[in-house]
């Protein structure tokens, strides 16, 4: 597994990702069957490889009852939908799944194999058993293709409520004979998770997986990618759209529209705020010194200025800027392989963000989107992680 930021594929990601890779952002791409048909995925996979990116295919069994026309182009879809009701898979269907996973991953020249899995719910034994069987099918394919097989560990909302349930799920997941983990955590419907306690649970679970010594890819990380390498993940997956910023079950339900924020003004993602600010409405209300601190640029933000007359930065470019900015910061953090150092790097950035938000408030501006709601709590959660799980970090150091 490549170390650093990965692109989490979402709706209309294919060219978006190419632009990012061309700008040097990202070490790999996780292709989503929900968002691109198989023929296109094969074509784009070649292009991604041509840009020196690794490619993974996320079979997305999370909500197996869901399907759409793009998913139907993949042979893996038959198995998905078949197990949706019973949460079981019979031996003949496992054979079908093996063939399907082989066909898709070999067609994409995948660099690793993400095993299909349902969302782990409250430690339910039937789901654990099903996921074990799904993993065994995937492992067979990974071994045949000569690529690592990553166990999928998506911890559902019902499991998040209890540390003990999470531990049971992790004990199961870490018993699988895998070569790494594709790890996601379901939060509430907040745009960006802000609960100190729940963020800590997410980081703690990730740290537990990392302590196996196997690589962890923090899936659906979004802005939380700042924390991923601090809890020992090797990779962190970043998408351009808010429903890719955390594991969002509703993404696999009926969608009334494509989202995208409608006519909302673009949000400028500032690495110094570790959050967004409305562009230009809020930016222009700040004194120049704060504007200069906030406007952390990327190749996709050159049009943005603090000029009162500025307008017309496409929302789409705001997304590109955000992903590029997060990837850049994650790349810098990833250059150091020590999780404790990486956690402290994240803390430094968060402290800067907290201070800057305080300065914005002092300047008399109240941010409309409540985008300062989580940085302080992330900081506290990371501090908790470093303090309460000091021995885990020591253990990771012993493994290195």
């Amino acid at each position: 597994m490549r170390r650093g930021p990965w692109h989490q594929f979402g709706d209309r990601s294919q060219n978006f990702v190419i632009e990012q890779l061309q700008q040097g952002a990202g070490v790999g791409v996780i292709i989503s069957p929900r968002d691109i048909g198989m023929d296109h995925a094969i074509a784009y996979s070649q292009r991604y490889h041509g840009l020196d990116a690794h490619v993974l295919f996320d079979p997305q069994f999370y909500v197996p009852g869901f399907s759409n026309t793009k998913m139907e182009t993949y042979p893996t879809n038959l198995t998905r939908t078949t197990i949706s009701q019973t949460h079981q898979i019979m031996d003949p269907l496992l054979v079908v799944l093996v063939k399907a996973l082989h066909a898709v991953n070999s067609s994409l020249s995948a660099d690793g194999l993400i095993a299909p899995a349902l969302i782990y719910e409250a430690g339910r034994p039937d789901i654990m058993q099903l996921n074990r069987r799904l993993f065994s099918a995937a492992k067979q394919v990974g071994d045949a293709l000569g690529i690592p097989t990553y166990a999928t560990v998506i911890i559902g909302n019902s499991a998040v409520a209890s540390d003990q349930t999470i531990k049971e799920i992790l004990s199961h997941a870490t018993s699988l004979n895998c070569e790494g983990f594709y790890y996601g955590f379901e939060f509430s419907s907040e745009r960006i998770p802000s609960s100190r306690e729940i963020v800590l649970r997410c980081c703690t679970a990730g740290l537990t997986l990392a302590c196996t010594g196997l690589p962890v890819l923090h899936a659906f990380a979004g802005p939380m990618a700042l924390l991923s390498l601090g809890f020992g993940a090797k990779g962190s997956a970043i998408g351009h759209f808010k429903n890719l910023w955390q594991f969002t079950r509703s993404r696999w339900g009926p969608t009334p529209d494509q989202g995208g924020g409608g006519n909302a003004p673009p949000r400028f993602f500032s690495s110094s705020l570790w959050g967004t600010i409305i562009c230009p409405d809020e930016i222009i209300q700040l004194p120049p010194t704060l504007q200069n601190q906030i406007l952390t640029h990327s190749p996709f933000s050159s049009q943005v200025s603090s000029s009162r007359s500025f307008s017309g930065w496409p929302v789409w470019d705001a997304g590109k800027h955000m992903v590029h900015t997060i990837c850049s910061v994650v790349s810098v953090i990833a250059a150091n392989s020590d999780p404790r150092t990486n956690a402290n790097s994240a803390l430094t950035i968060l402290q800067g963000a907290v201070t800057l938000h305080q300065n914005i408030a002092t300047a008399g501006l109240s941010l409309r989107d409540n985008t300062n709601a989580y940085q302080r709590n992330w900081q506290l959660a990371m501090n908790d992680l470093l303090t309460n799980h000091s021995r885990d970090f020591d253990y990771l150091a012993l493994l290195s």
Partner: protein
Amino acid sequence: MPFNVPIDQAQADYPEYTFISPLTPGEQKAAFHVKDTQGQDLCLKIIAPNYNIDRVDREIQALQSISHPNVVRLIEYTRSSKPGQQKHCIVEEFIEGTDLGQSLQSGQQWSRPDASVFFTALFSGLAALNDLNIVHRDLKPTNIRVRTNGSPVIIDFGLARLLDQSSLTDTPDGAAIGTPQYFSPEQCRGTKHDIDHRTDLFASGCLLYQALIGKHPFWRDDITRSELYDAIYESNDYLDEPDFLTLPEQWQVITGRLLKKERADRPHNAAQVEAILQKIREI
């Protein structure tokens, strides 16, 4: 209750071997030091008539699949039946030496270099079992022989898999609780589907702790079974032992991690522990 066979009777039943001396019997096997016709020293274990054949099959399958200096070597398995004569035995290499129990005396602390060498080899043997998806499930001092050169050999594996917990007593008699001294939390719970190679890591963590600190992390002389189980489930008091706290941090980390209550928090596999112990040998 150990399964005992008088040595004279054993000699009569297995005349192709020369019986030298009885060894510590197990609950289901009477063990002897024997010599074969070439004079080779061997260990012959006569299997009790009521012994579960599935367990034997599992043990033989495991023994046949492994070749490692820290795991006992199978020589022969015999099961035959003629009128008036039944033979059911396992013949293994004879390991000249002692049980680990003799080296884990209360109050006796090993030097860290000695512990490192010994337990690196033990975890190497366990790693070989891991590779073959074999879980010993009954690691304890009497199931680890120590060769005369000091290296460990894991014996009697495969049997503990079906340990019958209902046969344990509730008496406060320490002798009565025997094996549970090295039970992991998941073994205490009796959730067999939770038992995996990390169950062995927990037991070996108890052994490592005993070697380094000179006492068992959970067991004491007057403990009842339920108290022992509670301690295994919940107690972290062993982390506060003065002798534990004086260990170098790296040793505390690896020993503490082996003894974690939840499998996910233990080392991922024995090979990982083997590598770490090698790394901290000089500390």
